């Protein structure tokens, strides 16, 4: 399922670009709503607190950053352009999600690679184990295996016995 992440991301990125390409008719200078600001802020990190995103942080610095987003949106920046603006000034560190390029790519690739290795190992193991079959008996708990109804019947018979 994970292999779909990349194609999916590609489609999403393509869609974003496609949306950007559509002619923006009459940029009305309306004030961006807080929800619009939050939608962008969600993708950025709080510059001061660890582990919080910009949307949820209530510190002064974060308020200033959110105001900055609001200004940029009011100037007609798209969501991606706002994010780029922040990355250009503060580095990729400000993004919540590692960019799927450059070193950030490793963040995405290694788990995928690990999963692939795991699948390979599983297949190897299954094949190895099922190759040489020797008749051996290992104790399997009947209650874990035999049909419950069958088991109850045995018990019943034993009782009569």
């Amino acid at each position, binding site marked *: *399922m*994970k292999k*779909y*992440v990349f194609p999916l991301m590609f489609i999403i990125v393509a869609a974003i670009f496609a949306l950007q390409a559509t002619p923006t008719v009459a940029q009305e200078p309306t004030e961006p709503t*807080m*929800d619009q600001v*939050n939608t962008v802020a969600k*993708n950025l*990190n709080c510059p001061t607190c*660890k*582990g*919080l*995103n910009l*949307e*949820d942080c*209530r510190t002064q610095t974060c308020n200033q950053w959110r105001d900055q987003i609001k200004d940029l949106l009011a100037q007609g920046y798209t969501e991606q352009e706002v994010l780029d603006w922040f990355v250009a000034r503060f*580095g*990729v*560190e*400000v993004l*919540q*999600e*590692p*960019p799927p390029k450059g*070193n*950030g790519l*490793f*963040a995405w690739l*290694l*788990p995928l690679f*690990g*999963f692939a290795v*795991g*699948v390979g190992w*599983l297949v190897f193991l*299954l094949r190895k*184990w*099922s190759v*040489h*079959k*020797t008749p*051996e008996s*290992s*104790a*399997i*708990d*009947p*209650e*874990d*295996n035999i049909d*419950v*109804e069958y*088991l*109850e*019947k*045995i*018990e*019943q018979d*034993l009782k009569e*016995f």
Partner: protein
Amino acid sequence: MDGFMPAIGYTAQVLALILAVYAIVFAVMGARKNRQDLILSAKNASLGVTALLTVAVVAMEYLLITRHYQTEYVSQVTNSDATLFFRMAALWGSQKGSLLFFGWLMSIFTGAILLNKWGAVKTLIPYVMAVMNLVLVFFIGLVVTVANPFQQLSFFPVDGQGLNPLLYHWGMVIHPPILYIGFVAFIVPYSFAMAALITGQRGDLLMRTTRRWTLVAWLFLSAGLLLGGRWAYDVLGWGGYWGWDPVENAAFIPWLVATPFLHSVIIQENRGMMKRWNVGLIILTFALVVEGTFLTRSGVIGSVHTFSQSAIGPLFLGFIAIMFIASLVLFVNRWELLESEGELDSMFSRESAFLLNNLLFISIAFTVWWGTHFPIISEALTGTKIVVGPPFFKKAVGPLFAAVVLLMGVTPLMPWRKITSRKLLRQLIVPSIVAVVVAIALPLLTAIHFKGAIMTLAFIAFSAAVMLMEYWRGVSARRRAHGENLFTALVHLVRRNRRRYGGYLIHIGVLLAALGIVGMEFYQVETQQNVALGESFSISSPFTGTFEMTFRGLQQAPGKPGVENTEGLLDVSRNGEFVGTIKPYRELFLRQQQPMTIPDVYRAGMTELYVIIAGWEPDGQSATFKAYINPMINWLWFGGIVFAIGTLVAAWPSAQPARRTSRTRIKEKVAETP
């Protein structure tokens, strides 16, 4: 008395350290020379460690309760405003105290192990004792040297700084101890596994003996994680329960490794397979526990720079490295001994389903580990830190968790060894029909249209159907065979195979919790609005309709000492009908000047309207609120409770010496017959 207490506490720590070293030396010597007197002496020394650390903890509590601010730690975590309750809980409120607390809990487990009668695995106990005390030496060593909580200041401060405001919550008071118990209890399976490797035992018996301890450790870890989520939801005010924060992940990763262990150990018991793998998982779980403690205690993930400031960091890292390498060396040395006895008969068997379970969980664990460590790794290697936030984790592990949910339903249908594909297909019919009906009905009858949500809900329906069918089959078989009524049959069924039916109950809990997670991940909506007095704002969700909230004003409310509470009053109406008033508030901790936004909720069945106050104008004429609709969130908490009950059912000690299975009973009957 006050002047003596720090000295008493510190001396107790030092003596505990000496006794722990003594216990290691004498336990190993006693085992080597097979001398019971030496082993007994080591055992008494080890119990002495437990007693001495208890003295240290009591001394620390005394200093905290009496506000002995000259003790540096006390002045950091309490102040004149702190109530008795929070002064006592301050023991685990900061690094030094929590290390002492951690060591103490671990020593209690050591004591409990030594006081237990071990029967067949008794020969392992000296080595178990040695391994446990080795780990204890590290933790006691820390509080004796670089992290001494009894450190005195050269002056007597008038007042202390007090706990971090985030910690003033009942959840924060019980969440760390429960999580810590979960953490330290994994020392039991770990030290038994190490002892088996040292003595060259094959460890089958040991897996059985320590199974219950592992299950208890796992229960506490799970409960700790859930309580942490609940605390975040109630206090942090970001509308969610899990933020993929490094500290949260640090507790989650060992859980993700312990969970497949609990499953694959069943294969070992039944088929004699996966021995190496299981020992590996135990070592890994405990290494991750220690690493998790290190992450949460050193702040290393926040930035590599805090790492060099903390004396504890390098020591911890050194200990983890030594422990892990030593475990691995032993493990590799005994590689041949742990050879698998059984063989796989078919791809369609419970064994292979469990293998898949292991693959999925380990992949999730690795992904979370990698994402959590990527910021430090990227900073160390390239100089630029790349942050890995929640969106990464959701995308990367979400599909894997969905697969786990599906597998949870498939596995019980697969018997050990093999099943013919025809029989398997027959078993799959009913749950598959349920899943397909759910998948078709949801988009037609409800507002659920996201493919991911529909798929996951269909998986949940599939697995839930299997679980219920398993219960139903068992109950009706009993009713037919014994003529019992529904309730008695259920009780007897569960009692006779608690591990199996407790396990199913755990799965049902997980499935219920998954409903809440699906609701939150796919359908949470939020809005932030600035409203003037008397003005309204609204938020809608297809699941609950529209909530309209009218701002009725701000008011000061009585709060904790040293805290200024400002409440925002909101009248709530649902689809035009007034349903009540909610009061989200902001706490301002005056001393630290730190604000906390505490949400208030309106419950609509399993869904919640969750509102926080984000800010206001000084004149109180307008305020900013943030509202969320959290669909099905209460299923998460409810599922958590079912999960805990299921674990208790599976782990509760039985009255009978060992589980008398039908097999043993059949054997007995056969032996009796002439």
